[in-house]
């Protein structure tokens, strides 16, 4: 194991941020800590980095217990949501910071910074100041800076949270490729389930200071351990005692005994997908995700009465 956080508890006054949490991250993997705000995911990451101290529990990195160590002795690369760029330094000096602290020879620093800036596609901007960069560029600089010290683990705290949707998607894909090249053990904190599913090979879902489930993106989506995971990772509707995802609902024009009658409120075209928003006899709302072709075939339109039937559902005891 590259990172092991064992039985971590952290309180802020009366608020329990982490409640006896244990999580392990395999060497070379890319793990996402996924949860709503206040679930404790950032606190857990900061405890691993040493930026926050746990009230109880221990942190082991590459087999070494680093619990009492300050962040500078942990060898972790940390990327902040709001970049934490050194505003008074150029891009080059930002990236070189960790190497200068380690008193590496000048030629080595110049060479390494050059290669890192190339890796994050900022070669031409070495002499700029952070204020002259876009948000996406600043965050790439933040990544290069963290990678410069050749960290044992790379920790990213909502790294793309302050960026707009398009840059977010771009950087996400780029991070995945970067990880495939460097194989640095990476943990990314995010509240965006799509981001977690997209980028990670292991997802740890958190809520209220606890880990709800750890598994591959596919397993947390398809075999959620509980109601929280079912509804937080992807959309889900509750039908009686069971939960069903919008794409696991079949729409028919005729009833067949197992179906329920609903009225179409709205048909939303999202490109390949079509979302049909429905309301049933007692006013409960649900939506169906279907294909454009299917929606056209059934000639779905608002105010129409149709019938839905789950093709697949999940029940929790």
């Amino acid at each position: 194991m590259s990172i092991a956080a064992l039985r971590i508890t952290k309180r802020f006054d009366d608020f329990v941020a982490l409640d006896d949490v244990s999580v392990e991250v395999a060497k070379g993997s890319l793990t996402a800590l996924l949860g709503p705000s206040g679930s404790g995911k950032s606190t857990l990451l900061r405890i691993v980095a040493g930026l926050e101290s746990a009230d109880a529990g221990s942190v082991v990195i590459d087999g070494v217990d680093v619990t009492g160590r300050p962040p500078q002795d942990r060898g972790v690369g940390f990327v902040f949501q709001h970049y934490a760029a050194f505003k008074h330094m150029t891009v080059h000096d930002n990236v070189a910071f960790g190497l200068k602290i380690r008193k590496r020879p000048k030629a080595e620093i110049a060479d390494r910074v050059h290669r890192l800036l190339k890796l994050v596609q900022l070669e031409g901007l070495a002499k700029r100041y952070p204020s002259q960069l876009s948000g996406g560029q600043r965050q790439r600089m933040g990544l290069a800076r963290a990678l410069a010290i050749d960290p044992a683990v790379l920790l990213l705290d909502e790294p793309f949270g302050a960026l707009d949707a398009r840059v977010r998607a771009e950087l996400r894909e780029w991070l995945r490729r970067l990880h495939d090249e460097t194989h640095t053990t990476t943990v990314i904190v995010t509240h965006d389930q799509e981001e977690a599913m997209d980028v990670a090979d292991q997802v740890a879902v958190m809520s209220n200071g606890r880990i709800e489930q750890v598994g591959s993106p596919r397993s947390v989506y398809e075999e959620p351990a509980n109601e929280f995971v079912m509804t937080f990772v992807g959309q889900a509707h509750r039908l009686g005692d069971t939960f069903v995802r919008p794409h696991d609902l079949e729409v028919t024009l005729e009833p067949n005994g197992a179906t329920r009658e609903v009225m179409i409120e709205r048909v939303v075209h999202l490109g390949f997908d079509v979302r049909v928003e429905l309301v049933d006899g007692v006013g409960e709302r649900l939506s169906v995700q279907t294909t454009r072709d299917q929606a056209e075939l059934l000639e779905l339109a608002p105010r129409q009465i149709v019938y839905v039937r789950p093709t697949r559902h999940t029940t929790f005891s």
Partner: protein
Amino acid sequence: MGRYGLRVVALGYLTLILIAPLAMMVWRTAEDLDGAWAAITAPDTIAAFELTLKVTTIAVVVNTVFGIICALLIVRGNVPGRGFLNAFVDLPLSLSPVIVGLALITLYGANGWLGWFQRHGHEIVFATPSIVLATIFVTLPFVVREVVPTLREIGTEQEQAAHTLGASGWQAFWRITLPSIRWAVVYGVVLTAARAIGEYGAVALVSGNIAGETQTATLRVEDAYQFSYGNYAPAYGIAFVLAATAILVLVAMLVLQPKGARH
């Protein structure tokens, strides 16, 4: 029209309050340049300038170091009583310098709690140490007041990033914190220096005002004015040097300061 009206009011106000008195003084200095020059170059005046320079330098150094420490405590410290510290730092701004001077005499004078020094030949009152103490007292808030908001604004993330990159607390302070607050420090230093050079009331009480020994430049101006016997050129001349220094410092600030460094 209203725009121009407003400008006239603002300019008129500035002229009347700031520019006219200074201009008048410059005018009078120019009228008797020889007399002014003789007063400026008199040995006692040179000694007064030297004393002011010495006192100002000490006050600036002490209040810069302690100002930064106080600001760090107020913004970052989790010690009890930092709210109290924050409020207390402003005391010299609201307290009359005369009271400061009187308090220092009471404390360090031969009968004061710290009168031991005075009684044993280590003169504090009516000597340079008390002038330094009085000046440090009245200039205490400036660096703190400039640095506190800047420290609040920069937050701690950059320092945290520096720590994760291997920097110790001391390295993070020198390489990240101090460069980030440098313009606030410079501004605080300028205000401290200006106030130290110009301080009169507190110094007047504690210094003893002995020409050539414990007389600062501002005391010298007052002296030259009191004992002018109708010849004001010496007072104008020395005052002109002090005013010119202040204006030069302000201009230097404007030139040195990079665009957008403040606000």
